């Protein structure tokens, strides 16, 4: 099946935050009580109950060079996903439509994904937590799996009034994003399509009129080295060592049982 994606065009976004509200409504996530911090950006961060929020960035200090930038902040649904790499129970996995899905009933609440994600997206604290063991399962954007597998757009896309968010086949959106960036280049020479190559392709693409770092996005996101070495090198070595030890001991038993019995009988 063709991989799906969301295209976010920052140049069309007015930061109305309708997508934030739609996300909470569709996914039944309660609002959070926050305090006025002197910015429209609210709530201040992602949480177990906030899977999508808009980031506001202010650049420049004179009216001439001042810019107010908006960027969508939610799961990027990476092809090379650090969270899937480190998840010990396979609760996190790649859906056949490309995005990163998860089964909450398999989540052990270990929090490895929270630490491994190069975009700082997953949050512990879902599922309420047990009375005794206090485990809190992970929460993040689920790409509105329930909607898209029934032929609907994700809730955030559905509600976007300016067309900054679109949904469709990733290959189509990639072409669309590339064309949009090309047309922006004349006015914004740094215009960039984020998510085309990052981590082997994200399933949320960003049309930016400047470099990613200006928007607070990591320029070259990577799976943490520790996670890769741990999963792809150390764990196979561990299985190999334990297997060799068991094999060696079995061999020893077979040989030594005969040899050493004979010796002691000779005594």
């Amino acid at each position, binding site marked *: 099946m063709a991989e799906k994606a969301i295209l976010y065009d920052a140049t069309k976004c007015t930061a109305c935050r309708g997508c934030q509200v739609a996300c909470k409504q569709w996914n039944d996530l309660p609002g959070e009580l926050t305090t006025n911090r002197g910015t429209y950006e609210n709530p201040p961060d992602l949480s177990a109950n906030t899977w999508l929020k808009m980031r506001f960035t202010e650049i420049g200090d004179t009216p001439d060079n001042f810019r107010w930038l908006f960027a969508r902040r939610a799961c990027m649904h990476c092809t090379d996903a650090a969270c899937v790499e480190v998840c010990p129970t396979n*609760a996190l996995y790649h859906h056949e439509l490309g995005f990163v899905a998860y089964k909450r009933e398999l989540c052990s609440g*270990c929090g490895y994904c929270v630490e491994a994600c190069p975009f700082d997206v997953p949050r512990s604290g879902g599922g309420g937590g047990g009375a005794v*063991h206090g485990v809190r399962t992970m929460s993040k954007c689920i790409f509105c799996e329930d909607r898209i597998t029934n032929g609907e757009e994700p809730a955030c896309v559905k509600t976007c009034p300016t067309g900054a968010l679109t949904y469709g086949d990733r290959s189509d959106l990639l072409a669309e994003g590339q064309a949009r960036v090309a047309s922006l280049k004349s006015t914004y020479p740094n215009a960039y399509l984020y998510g085309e190559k990052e981590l082997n392709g994200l399933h949320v693409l960003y049309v930016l009129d400047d470099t990613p770092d200006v928007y607070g996005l990591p320029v070259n996101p990577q799976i943490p080295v520790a996670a890769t070495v741990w999963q792809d090198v150390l764990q196979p070595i*561990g299985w190999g060592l334990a297997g060799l030890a*068991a094999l060696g001991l079995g061999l020893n038993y077979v040989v030594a049982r005969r040899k050493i019995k004979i010796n002691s009988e000779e005594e």
Partner: protein
Amino acid sequence: METVERKPKSTPILHYIFGAPPAPGEDVVERYSRPVRILHWVNAVAWIVLFITGLIFFVPQFGGGAVGGWSGLFHRIAAVVMVGWAALYFVTSPRSALSGVREAFKWGRDDIGWMQAAPSYYMLGGEDTMPPQGHMNTGQKLWWLTVLGAGSLMILTGALMWFFKNIISSGAFMWSAFFHDVGFIALLTFALVHVYLSVFHPRMRGIFWSMWGGEISTKYAESHHKKWYDEVSKGEGS
């Protein structure tokens, strides 16, 4: 007269599994004091709990066992019991605890001799080249060093991931998980050897009971730990 009739409290099935303890009436020497034996078995039980609750985390197919967080809770309880009991032992018997730790670092010429002789000694039954050994032989010291070293690594990295999760960086957390796994592999591999040698290996068959009752036969002590046996028998003035 009655002593003739006395029979050992025989538990044949256990003897079948673990080998036979010293026969009744056989000369024995004390090898492990009661506090050391209790420390060993508390540690062993906690280790098994830690191992199982850790392994289901290692293998995605067992991952279901970690759901709900109960395995994590048991993992932490076992960790507290293990570390707590060792600390308690250290506080109540500091002198024997210190000398026990020091034993891991006493290395000499006979340890090199052990390494050269070990393959033949443990595989083929060759005895001639094995130099006399102290209270712990070289292999036991290696295991003891692994327990101390990898154990410290487990405590350090485990504490970082448990208590300091919100303070340390994501990178430090990931490396803690990595080195917790390194310690796991080292301990698991060496524990396989430890259990095999103390229960199944024909040369040490029955030695399991020394960690249960605390005693080994003088015959075994002399043939396996000559240097230690000489010290002990001299001390007894026999």
